[in-house]
């Protein structure tokens, strides 16, 4: 019998793409679907997904939980569990479109929820931490239920299939967001179910990633000390938890976070002439050795109001950035950007380990 993703580690290669409108203008999800087309050969039809930010303005104060269920009974049980900690403001099936390319679909629902203040007070937890714990609880203990998106005013959509088909399946042209990320997966084995597709997300952090990291188990065993549980054995999952830990729990900036996970080589640090910068890097590498990522990766981290793109420090994966007006595009291949913005200018490749952070301009409505 084929093992499901999570029971085995399935290395994968990938294509990634992302776009953000710095003026906050909403874009339909269709652009990302088209961007993935010229990179078709970077995926193998065994995983595709998207994350959109600013797509749920009507429910922007609620956590949007996207869940896969294996049966109606599991859904009922899970809903009952959610009600013990949350007010469920709205619940519905996520609209999809039947297409021949996407099969074996689970039951897919979304819930717009707010944590019950009384429960938070009882547990002495802040809201986000409570949501994280709930997600971990469902994903590790509730067989047949899986939360694959849990942020506010954002959502992740993923499936087994080519990304172009996954986008059509989820009717992404009907959503409008100020930023989008996309992922086409090339796993070495069939994942067995949809949870293993990317993006991987927690709260409003979502990660798309290309490459197989060699530090996986060192990172996993480190991060699991802090209540995270890696159920999928995928790189993207552990990177997402590392981001959440460093950004939210440790309060590091995006640049500092990049300095931990894609730390400069000691030799490069030794040669730095800016002493403050040198001291900072020395500090970060010394404090978080268990969170250094080695091996090839290019990632795009989505978060509320922005995107961060980052390559591994040897730059073993390709990634280009392009601009046109207020739009910024990121992709594994330039052709992806050209497909949706033939006139993109200022196309460049960020150096290994150097984060590219793009935020929506101050005052723009997100």
């Amino acid at each position: 019998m084929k093992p499901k993703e999570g029971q085995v580690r399935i290395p994968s290669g990938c294509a990634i793409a992302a776009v953000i409108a710095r003026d906050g203008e909403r874009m339909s999800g269709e652009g990302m679907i088209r961007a993935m087309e010229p990179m078709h050969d970077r995926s193998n039809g065994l995983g595709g997904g998207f994350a959109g930010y600013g797509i749920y303005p009507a429910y922007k104060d609620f956590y949007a939980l996207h869940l896969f269920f294996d049966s109606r009974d599991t859904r009922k049980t899970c809903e009952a569990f959610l009600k013990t900690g949350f007010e469920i403001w709205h619940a519905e099936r996520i609209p999809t479109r039947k297409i021949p390319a996407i099969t074996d679909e689970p039951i897919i629902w979304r819930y717009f929820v707010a944590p019950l203040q009384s429960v938070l007070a009882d547990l002495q937890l802040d809201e986000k931490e409570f949501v994280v714990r709930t997600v971990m609880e469902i994903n590790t203990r509730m067989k047949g239920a899986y939360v694959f998106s849990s942020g506010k005013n954002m959502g992740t959509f993923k499936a087994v299939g080519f990304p172009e088909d996954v986008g059509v399946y989820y009717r992404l042209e009907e959503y409008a967001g100020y930023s989008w990320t996309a992922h086409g997966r090339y796993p070495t084995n069939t994942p067995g179910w949809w949870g293993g597709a990317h993006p991987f997300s927690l709260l409003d952090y979502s990660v798309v990633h290309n490459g197989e990291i060699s530090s996986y188990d060192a990172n996993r065993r480190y991060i699991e000390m802090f209540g995270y549980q890696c159920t999928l054995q995928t790189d993207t999952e552990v990177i997402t938890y590392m981001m959440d830990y460093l950004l939210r729990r440790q309060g590091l900036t995006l640049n500092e976070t990049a300095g931990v996970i894609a730390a400069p080589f000691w030799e490069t640090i030794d040669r730095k002439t800016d002493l403050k910068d040198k001291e900072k890097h020395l500090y970060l590498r010394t404090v978080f050795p268990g969170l250094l990522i080695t091996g090839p990766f290019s990632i795009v981290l989505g978060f509320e109001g922005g995107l961060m793109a980052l390559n591994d420090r040897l730059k073993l994966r390709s990634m280009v950035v392009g601009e046109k007006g207020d739009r910024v595009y990121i992709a594994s291949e330039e052709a992806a950007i050209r497909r949706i913005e033939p006139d993109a200018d200022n196309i460049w490749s960020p150096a290994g380990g150097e984060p590219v952070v793009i935020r929506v301009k101050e005052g723009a409505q997100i």
Partner: protein
Amino acid sequence: MKQIDAKELDFRTLNERLRQATDDIEILNCCGQRFIGAGLSDRKILIRGTPGNALGAYLNGASLTVGGNVQDAVGDTMNAGKITVHGNIGDAAGYAMRGGTILVKGNAGYRAGIHMKAYQDKVPQMVIGGRAGSFLGEYQAGGVIVVLGLGEKQSRIVGNFPCTGMHGGKMFLRAACEDIAFPQQVTARRATDEDLREIQNILLEFCAVFSYDIAAILDAPFTVITPDTSNPYRQMYVVN
């Protein structure tokens, strides 16, 4: 010159048409198709748009010109011919190339000229008009790599770790390079007029293709880097 509109064509169809054509070709609306010109030994191909990875792999004499940027692995294991790029090139350009010429107006990504080699009359040349990323000329075993840094304000026209494992060939950087750390097994020194004569022809060609003035290019210090030995790891092993 015959035109092929590459819009909606996958790489296999496009390349098959290229192989069947007998004339020179202009490809229009290229967007991500890989392996263009793979192994081709004759013909000129002009590409409009953005060709995909491994452009001109195993190229064996054909001439490819790209109006804009190219992606990764251009000129992979190239044996002869010419690739001219009016924009930038991606990572690992000219990997293991043994002959022919790559001329780039703009910048190069990481690992340009990695494991470039030379043999007898085959001396590959790569000229990068802008700056080059890290690991330039890693394992370079032969041939000539030139980085001009034209239009660069900063003095560092290459990234980190250039010439790692270099054991043959030559590299010319149009900069004083005082702030660049080269590995121990290479010698970096100011290029003499005699050194520069070696690259005069290729620079003249670069200037002709991209409309630069050779005098302006030569009016700057050049650093030439050569390996100290063609056997860098001789002392590393003990027989067991």
